[in-house]
């Protein structure tokens, strides 16, 4: 009887956990910024999730649940603790996210900038971890605000404001690249004219 229960549990765990392996690893690597630490983090997450699976309620959001385990595991790791020590007390009051008076990049300059994945990846890498994680959960994992709220254990209002600041900070950091790209475009246009 006990075994059949365990069997059912493992079947469910398998069904839910398999499709998330690569995504969890990607997210872990973005958080830790290090391959070995990401591997340790994913491994620990799977062990904890498997052990705690009996407490997971089937029918609720498994993805938010396992991402939350991964994130909490990261925050209690040596690197995570170091990161949280250097993060502002209230990350949602970070002034860096304030809207500047400059206009947004034009679609054309963004298109040009898209060719440089590396510069975008570097800009994401350089974001504070609370901005990086929320941006990745929204844009890469395509989580809803509710899922992000469940994963990060913050209210939806905080999700919206933090996401907005994360995007603005990223735009601000990309702006020099965009302006450079726009400059190149103008120079190329001038050459054509000649």
């Amino acid at each position, binding site marked *: 009887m*006990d*075994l059949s229960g*365990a069997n059912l549990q*493992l079947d469910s*765990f*398998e069904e839910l*956990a*398999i*499709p998330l*392996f*690569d*995504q969890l*690893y*990607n997210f872990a*690597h*973005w958080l830790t910024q290090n*391959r070995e630490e*990401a*591997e340790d983090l*994913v*491994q620990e997450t*799977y*062990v904890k999730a*498997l052990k705690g699976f009996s407490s997971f309620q089937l029918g609720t959001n498994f993805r938010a649940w396992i991402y939350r385990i991964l994130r909490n595991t990261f925050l209690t790791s040596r690197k995570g603790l170091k990161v949280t020590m250097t993060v502002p007390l209230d990350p949602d009051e970070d002034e860096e996210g304030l809207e500047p008076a400059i206009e*947004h*990049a*034009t*679609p054309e300059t*963004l*298109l040009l*900038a*898209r060719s440089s*994945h590396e510069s*975008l*990846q570097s800009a*994401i890498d350089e974001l504070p971890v609370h901005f990086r994680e929320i*941006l*990745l959960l*929204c*844009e*890469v994992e*395509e989580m*809803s*605000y509710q899922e992000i709220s469940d994963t990060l254990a913050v209210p939806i209002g905080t999700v*919206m404001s933090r*996401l*907005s600041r994360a*995007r603005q900070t*990223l*735009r601000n950091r990309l702006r020099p690249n965009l302006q450079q790209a726009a400059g190149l475009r103008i120079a190329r246009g001038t050459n054509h004219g000649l």
Partner: protein
Amino acid sequence: MVCESWKAQLDTYLDGELPQEELRTFDSHARNCPSCSADALSRVQLKRAIHMAGKRFTPSAEFRKRMQQNMAPKPRRSFRLGWMLAAAAAVLLVVGTLTSTYLGNRSGRDQVFSEIADLHVATLASSSPVDVISSDRHTVKPWFQGRIPFAFNLPELQNSDFSLLGGRMTYLEQTPGAHLIYDERKHHISVFVFQEQSLPSKLSDNALQPGKLSFNMETWSKGGLRYFVIGDASAADIDSLAKLFKAAS
């Protein structure tokens, strides 16, 4: 500025998190406001760029193997826990084969659908969305001759709510194709046609909502050509236009 209150909601709109009635109001505003539609376009492009750039890291083969070994049953553990860990090891063994194939196909497919949505939005936001402006299919179809490496039929639109606005050349995954724009009760609908064999991603025929944007899309393959119909019209209207194309091809 008049648009400031709209722009404050732009990210929420693009994330697909606005309530239905606000979404409709926002849609109609964005369609008539060049500033908001240009801003929406640049944000959509940045979202797409982050989506692609964010899928950066994949687990190594060594890590997969190590996971299997670490999760293997230890002799001193209880039978129940050992059995669970053995099963978990089997799970992770399958991960290596199934996940990469499944996610690889899915991400390729999702990328194509997102690209189609981007092409649709970018074209509508453009000051010159079509290169050949005509409501006559006998004008639009010949325009593509010599511009794309295949021919296709356009449907007869009499007795339908659709009208042809024109066409333009487009590219999807470096493959040239035709982009046609139709009007249906003030909704603009894009129809894309590509050679199936030239598209790297394998797609199945279905109707869907790409990403979180408020579009409906239908795709199918016929006669070696891959068709996509996308727009903010209802799923039934998208399907009606798709049926007209299927009947014509």
